């Protein structure tokens, strides 16, 4: 078992960042952000082969695309703590004249972001295009993407999912955040999608399950398996089973915190549950 203590510490610190960012402006999306914290920390700190400096074209490095852009708090925190921009800039989240817009954009030139997202369902296509550009450039690095499960209700996803296997795009690992929740409630109540695994398999993808998507060891193991399945003619999908709001007990297992910020008291409780590890911004 690898020593994952630094990833655990960073995860806790990122949780604090998320809570403090959304609390300060009383807006933003903590639920999905907290659910994907372990995954994004592991991705940027361990899994991806990336350069220290940001370049839009991303030649000779792995790329990541966030399709469910509303979980910008976790994305911004992980990017900042991975060195793309000063951690202090997290203070400007959702404020006027900030590079940290409500949803991620390239428009203000924030390093680490390669496409705007937030209007759902567009990330698959963009990630697929970037993966094909890598093939054209004889660049053997991988493209990673993350998508919400509710987001799969958008039809454009399935255009891209169909295209990927038809074109043997095998340098892409797309992860679905299976938290079973969306704004209006459980995905099974809003619009049941049946077996997402069976759907991806029917569309010609190789599917890897990560049953505990909030466990860093499980994530590293599952993603290593996913990586080993690239380059074999088929796109790879990772089904990441997560708990929305993970790490803050009153936010867990509910969609109530999808797009709601904690008040002062709730913030204090959340911070007690996630003690400072690497220093607050």
């Amino acid at each position: 078992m690898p020593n994952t203590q630094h990833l655990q510490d960073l995860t806790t610190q990122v949780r604090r960042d998320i809570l403090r960012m959304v609390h300060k402006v009383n807006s933003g999306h903590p639920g999905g952000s907290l659910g994907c914290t372990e995954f994004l920390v592991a991705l940027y700190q361990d899994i991806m082969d990336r350069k220290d400096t940001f370049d839009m074209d991303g030649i000779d490095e792995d790329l990541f695309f966030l399709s469910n852009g509303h979980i910008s708090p976790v994305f911004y925190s992980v990017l900042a703590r991975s060195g793309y921009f000063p951690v202090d800039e997290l203070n400007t989240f959702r404020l006027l004249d900030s590079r940290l817009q409500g949803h991620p954009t390239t428009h203000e030139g924030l390093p680490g972001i390669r496409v705007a997202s937030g209007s759902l369902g567009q990330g698959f296509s963009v990630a697929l295009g970037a993966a094909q550009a890598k093939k054209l450039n004889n660049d053997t690095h991988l493209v990673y993407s993350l998508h919400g499960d509710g987001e799969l209700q958008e039809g454009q996803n399935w255009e891209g999912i169909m295209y990927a296997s038809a074109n043997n795009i095998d340098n892409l690992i797309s992860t679905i955040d299976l938290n079973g929740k969306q704004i209006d409630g459980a995905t099974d109540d809003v619009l049941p999608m049946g077996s997402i695994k069976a759907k991806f398999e029917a569309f010609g993808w190789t599917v890897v399950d990560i049953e505990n998507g909030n466990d860093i060891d499980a994530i590293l193991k599952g993603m290593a398996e996913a990586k080993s399945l690239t380059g074999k003619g088929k796109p790879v999908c990772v089904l990441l089973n997560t708990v929305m709001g993970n790490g803050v007990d009153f936010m867990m297992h509910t969609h109530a915190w999808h797009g709601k910020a904690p008040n002062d008291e709730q913030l204090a409780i959340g911070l007690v549950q996630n003690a400072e590890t690497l220093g607050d911004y």
Partner: protein
Amino acid sequence: MKTYTNTGNKDTRSGFGAGLTELGQTNENVVALCADLIGSLKMDDFKANHPERFFQVGIAEANMIGLAAGMTIGGKIPFTGTFANFSTGRVYDQIRQSIAYSDKNVKICASHAGLTLGEDGATHQILEDIGLMKMLPGMTVINTCDYNQTKAATIAIAEHNGPVYLRFGRPKVANFTPEDQKFEIGKAVKLTDGNDVTIVATGHLVWEALEAAKTLNERGISAEVINIHTIKPLDDKAILDSVSKTGCIVTAEEHNFLGGLGESVARVLSQHNPAPQEFVATNDTFGESGTPAQLMEKYGLNANAIIKATEKVVKRKN
């Protein structure tokens, strides 16, 4: 009055295809995507010559737009091809978020624009696309007038860093601009000198404006015809310089008068030099089935319509 010779009718979409073929040979970063309309868009040559840089996406335009945005990451210059209707209205949010707001270097190439698509009818005849595209911040909007100009524009936009909407059409129309022209984005082309009226036209209506000018000249009205191939950014100066001399203007386009070239021109004039203006455009309506000539006559988008509008606007002076 300067006159122009039609060197033989040709379709503007073939000009696009020829331009793309040339780009395939000269710019290895150019890639092409098509949503099941290779023959209609005249992309066959590019596909045959550069199969590794050609992407058939199937009937999935939203995915095509996103793929194109993604391919720019890594330095590719994607040209997407489908009908104007499916290039804009069908994928507006994909263009807005993944291309325009993300400032991606994608060239959205749209054929079969407007009524001249003909018999397929209003489901396919978009008359709102210029408006949709010109409202997107950072989007360049071009509507070329003939084969030669479409070919030149196709080549020119590959050198422009930023999103472009290139609009052209289906029918064979007069080919009259120089074969060796240098296409300058945002630079209007004055075709005739005149003193009594300015006629600014875009797309298929440019040749009609020249035909109208000949008749008007015989009737004692001297028309200055300007080809506005770039609707955004608009060549404000060319319009204002001409109207300061002629005192009135007719705008002509194969598009709804709401959201089209005419409204852009009206904005410029109202801000700087209010002058009488008449619109040759469709009047907030859908099209219908028919031959291109029948439709352009019925909806008032030909030389006769431009003549009538001109005689009306000249009378409105003073």
